């Protein structure tokens, strides 16, 4: 990643008769090139955030703004037990899923890092789940879990364990969704670890191996520290993304049974669009946005540091 910009060499002045005019144009050029993008980004970021904050300070009745609310939507949210329960489900979901994905992704990367034969096909097969739409991922696992179409129930029954009906019980539904997330996103951490492993210089490793270091010590003393900056970027990107998980859950359980899989995204969506209470929905999302922005800032500083490390 190159954040630094190349040094700019001014075009030679006085070479051609229209050089003066051209130098003026060259000076204005970067701003002219940036302008359309600046307007576009302003329209999809600054204006929506303003509109969102405004909505969070408004009382809606049947989808229509009826009065200013002050901070009422926020204090309501703060005192709403369902909101906190959704927060808890979200945190549990994100932490468990991302931890498992990181460990598995790293393990997988170590497994195939030195494989040359068929590497392209192996990589493509492993990353297939993360390329397709999350809705499709939801559909795939619905077909697998559901008693009518799936193989999970028949499999467990034939082993004499009884049909689990994964999506109908609170505990199994939650872990069923974690498994779906792991299937979908372990490939991302695998790819990141693989790219990191392949950029690590081999000579120090070989020297340490000659000195008699075993593979486990080699990994913890040499490979892991070098991999860490890249791995950290991947983990934080995944964390940010996981906080907003919505599509798969919408297709699989819509937050149920009960509220066992009701992530904050599902709860806010239902509040805003099923109950047309945009005020409370917006307040929840603004609160979550603040949390996500914090994660984003961590991600950005990690990315900068990783870039510097690579540049050295």
């Amino acid at each position, binding site marked *: 990643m*190159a*954040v630094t*910009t*190349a040094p*700019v*060499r001014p*075009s*030679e002045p006085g*070479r051609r008769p229209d050089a003066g005019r051209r130098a003026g*144009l*060259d000076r204005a*050029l*970067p701003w002219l*090139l*940036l302008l*359309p*993008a*600046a307007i*576009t*980004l302003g*329209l*999809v*970021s600054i204006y*929506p955030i303003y509109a*969102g904050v405004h909505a969070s300070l408004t009382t809606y009745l049947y989808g229509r703004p009826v009065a200013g609310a002050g901070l009422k939507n926020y204090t309501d949210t703060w005192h709403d037990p369902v909101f906190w329960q959704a927060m808890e489900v979200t945190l549990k979901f994100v932490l468990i899923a991302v931890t498992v994905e990181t460990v598995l992704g790293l393990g*997988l990367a170590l*497994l195939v890092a030195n494989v040359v034969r068929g590497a392209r096909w*192996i*990589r*493509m*097969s*492993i990353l*297939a789940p993360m*390329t397709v*739409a999350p*809705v*499709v991922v939801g*559909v*795939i696992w*619905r*077909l*697998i879990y*559901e008693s*009518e179409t799936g193989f999970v129930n*028949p499999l467990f029954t034939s082993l004499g364990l009884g049909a689990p009906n994964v999506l109908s019980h609170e505990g199994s539904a939650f872990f069923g969704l974690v498994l779906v997330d792991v299937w979908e996103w372990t*490939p991302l951490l695998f*790819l*990141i670890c693989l790219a990191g492993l392949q950029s690590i210089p081999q000579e120090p490793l070989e020297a340490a191996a000659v000195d008699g270091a075993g593979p486990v010590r080699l990994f913890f003393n040499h490979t892991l520290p070098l991999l860490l900056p890249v791995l950290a*970027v*991947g983990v934080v990107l995944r964390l940010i993304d996981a906080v907003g998980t919505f*599509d798969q859950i*919408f*297709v699989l359980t819509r937050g149920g049974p009960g509220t066992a899989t009701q992530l904050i995204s599902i709860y806010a*969506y239902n509040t*805003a*669009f099923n109950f047309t209470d945009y005020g409370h929905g917006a307040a929840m999302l603004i609160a979550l*946005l603040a949390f996500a922005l914090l994660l984003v800032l961590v*991600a*950005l500083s990690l990315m900068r540091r*990783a870039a510097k490390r690579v540049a050295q």
Partner: protein
Amino acid sequence: MKRAGRYARWAAIVLVIFGSLFPFLWMLSVSLKRQVDIFGGPSLPKQPTLSNYTALFTQYHFGAYLVNSILIVGASVLASLLIGTPAAYALARFKLPGGLNSQALFAALLVRMVPPILLVVPFYIILAKFGLLNTRLGLILLYTGINTSFVIWIMQSFLAEIPTDIEDAALVDGDSRLSALRRIILPLASSGLAATAIFAVITTYNDFLIALTMTSTPAAQTVPVGISTLIGKIQVEWGPMAAGGIIGALPILIFAFIVQRHFVRGMTLGAVK
């Protein structure tokens, strides 16, 4: 001993690939089954049929969903490339005052990083205000904005990799900046540009939440939303749903295979190459 280790490694790899691909094959198998066989327990399709696929188009508006998806994805990706690439070039080649380069880049990245759920309520309110709910134009505008941030960020890193020497030589020879950009930089950046475009296509085609909240009829609904309409409150159309999943997945798998070399870069927002 060494050989045993190698066999164990390959056994593990085969197992992982199986776990990764088997769910896709399961969906494919359900999509080719007749209604009676779907409820007959796990088995291969006894009499493979395409009836689920034809049902999608004759009963469930998939023709309209596909047309919407293609138009919306095409227009928004094209627009975001046209808006984002010049900005990326400016950030890669000119030193702006006050360290504006990196600040502008990170501001662009922010838009892309924030999960869409956090923006749907304001997006909805804005589109409602301008009468753009349930229109293709409304979705095109939103996706153009989101994709532009991605294009700036990724194209900037592709462009910064192109050595400045060639360009400088052209400038000395009397080319203007713009004609140097057109004659020299764009051809050199074409593979990066193609990868960026394909990434934008994949994420836009796959988006569900924004399309779900901004649309309500097949006049503007996209393929992922169309798939979700097959899940009724009481009854789920398993066969067509599986077929819809295949239609949703297939073009993306092909695209992903094409950009495989750039995949890490696109998916990690350029943090890893």
